[in-house]
């Protein structure tokens, strides 16, 4: 209670600072949040420089199997192989480093799809209300109750059978087809809870005076939504996107581990799956990729939690 009293007296003298500057100041003070930021930055740096950090090239390059040709299959961690070698004769350290690229790819692209759908559905439902809202929210509830992991498995299986093994070109970048299917399906199945969040934020913001004023001035729906409402709920969207990235990485690992992933793209879940049956001997090939997943997801979760503290309007300075 004394805490509340103290914060209230400090409101006036910082009126010029923007919402983001205030949030950044609050965020900096949170050691957990800074730790999360460092972890996520590390992941991004490792993914950018994976070619330099890894000891051997990524599969399908044959040099990835160098330990196998040296008869060093299933060797425990040593100076030569920091994380040991896998049951099929690859260097686990290199596999993990290359996997970081795919972890980011999965997290970011799946989240972009999820958030895109969530904003679309949530905005339409929240802004137009009435029967539109009613119908969209019934659909959203259906998706919430859906046993999504089970359906994701079936969909991934059905679509990867027809995907083939080549590469897909998108804006000049070649994408692995099976993994991209996994990512698309993960994105499509996760939007429901985020759509509810966006709708709630829309309902909260559009009753505020500045939106009412803009409506009275005769602004178009597009202008109100894009210039006024969306910028005001951006903070909630960013924070939920951070948590969704973490969730998508976890889900992809599960899908790959169960054997539904892309066998030609070595994600962390894929490494876990490849060595699962041999884990009695090559325990290091199960421990280190899992630690990599834990590190990244933990980083994104820390970041998201701290962002929610920093951006929470109820705790404003």
């Amino acid at each position, binding site marked *: 209670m004394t805490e509340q009293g103290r914060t209230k007296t400090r409101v006036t003298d910082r009126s010029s600072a923007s919402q983001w500057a205030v949030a950044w100041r609050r965020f900096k003070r949170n050691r957990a949040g800074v730790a999360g930021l460092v972890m996520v930055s590390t992941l991004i740096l490792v993914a950018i420089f994976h070619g330099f950090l890894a000891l051997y090239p990524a599969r399908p390059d044959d040099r990835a199997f160098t330990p196998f040709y040296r008869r060093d299959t299933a060797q425990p961690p040593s100076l030569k192989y920091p994380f040991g070698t896998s049951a099929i004769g690859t260097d686990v350290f290199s596999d993990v480093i290359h996997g970081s690229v795919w972890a980011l790819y999965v997290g970011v692209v799946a989240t972009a799809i999820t958030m895109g759908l969530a904003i679309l559905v949530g905005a339409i439902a929240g802004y137009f209300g009435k029967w539109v809202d009613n119908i969209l929210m*019934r659909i959203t509830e259906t998706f919430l109750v859906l046993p*999504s992991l*089970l*359906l994701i498995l079936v969909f991934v299986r059905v679509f990867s059978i027809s995907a083939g093994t080549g590469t897909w070109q998108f804006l000049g970048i070649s994408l692995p087809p099976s993994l991209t299917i996994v990512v698309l399906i993960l994105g499509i199945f996760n939007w429901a809870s985020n759509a509810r969040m966006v709708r709630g934020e829309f309902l909260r913001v559009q009753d505020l005076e500045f939106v009412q004023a803009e409506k009275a001035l005769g602004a178009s729906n597009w202008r109100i939504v894009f210039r006024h409402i969306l910028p005001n709920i951006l903070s909630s969207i960013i924070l939920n996107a951070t948590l969704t990235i973490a969730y998508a990485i976890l889900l992809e690992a*599960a899908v790959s581990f169960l*054997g539904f992933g892309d066998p030609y793209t070595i994600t962390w879940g894929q490494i876990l799956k490849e060595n699962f049956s041999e*884990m009695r001997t090559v325990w290091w090939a199960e421990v280190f990729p899992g630690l990599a997943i834990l590190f990244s997801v933990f980083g994104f979760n820390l970041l998201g939690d701290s962002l929610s503290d920093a951006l929470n309007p109820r705790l404003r300075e």
Partner: protein
Amino acid sequence: MIPLLIGISIISFVAMYAAGDPITIITMGRPTITEAQRQAIRIYYGLDKPIPVQYVNWLSNILRGDFGISFGGQPVRLLIGQWFWPTVELQLISILLSVALSIPIGIMSAKNRYSKRDIAVTSVALFGVSMPTFWLGIILIIIFSHNLGWLPSAGAIGVPYLWPVFGIADPSLDHLAHLILPVTVLTYVSFAQNVRLVRANMLEILRSDYILAARASGLSERLVIYKHALRNAITPVITHLGISLGSVVGGAPMIEYVFNWPGLGRRFVDAAMNLDFPVIMGITMIITLMTLVANLIVDLSYAFIDPRVMVE
């Protein structure tokens, strides 16, 4: 509830069969099967009819308790009957344990915010939600089963020998030994989610005016927390339990897979791998039904917890 069930069944049914003719997909890699044989299989499973007709047939069969015949040849109803109880056993034990642990610990953590204990609880919880469930299972198997040799690593019963507990080879003790590791993993993961919810809600409630009023009127701290705050703090947890039961049961495939548990989740993975559509649809419907029943129980339980809610 019924419209929701029908909605979900339509979504999964149409989406599954719209992906292409299942017989063609399944037999894609087998050049020796002729088109006439494929057609015979389609007619046998009723897959030659238009999708709406198939759906109505399937639905009316389900209502009569007939889940169809799996592509492996057994009636799906019998298969699900075998796999259902091991899953329910695993889930119920872990959910009950996690609720029993997360509510008092979450309250304790919120009451002493930023204390050492609170930081310990929040870190343990954050680890729990950041970990792949199956990976935790793998680590526990490596430690307790492969290295220490204390607990069995797979299955629900000891085959061919019973697992001795303190030197006693007894079927029920053996089953208990098989339960420990999977239950630990599931409990921890669900505890992590619930404790975060309880703590966040409790923090919000402890700041509210009616708690201030309760304290001001001189009630003991115990009464304030357990009578006035608790009821409001656990409502969201119960809501979360109801909504997430689908994903909890759905999350079990990983755990059942790692521990080779003979339940619905483990078999679902096999069915999805082989695209055994009758089994897939059967398990999906059972799990959805369980989720909806859980939601119903949750809605009814509000009436007990929150006096403002009346059951009409």
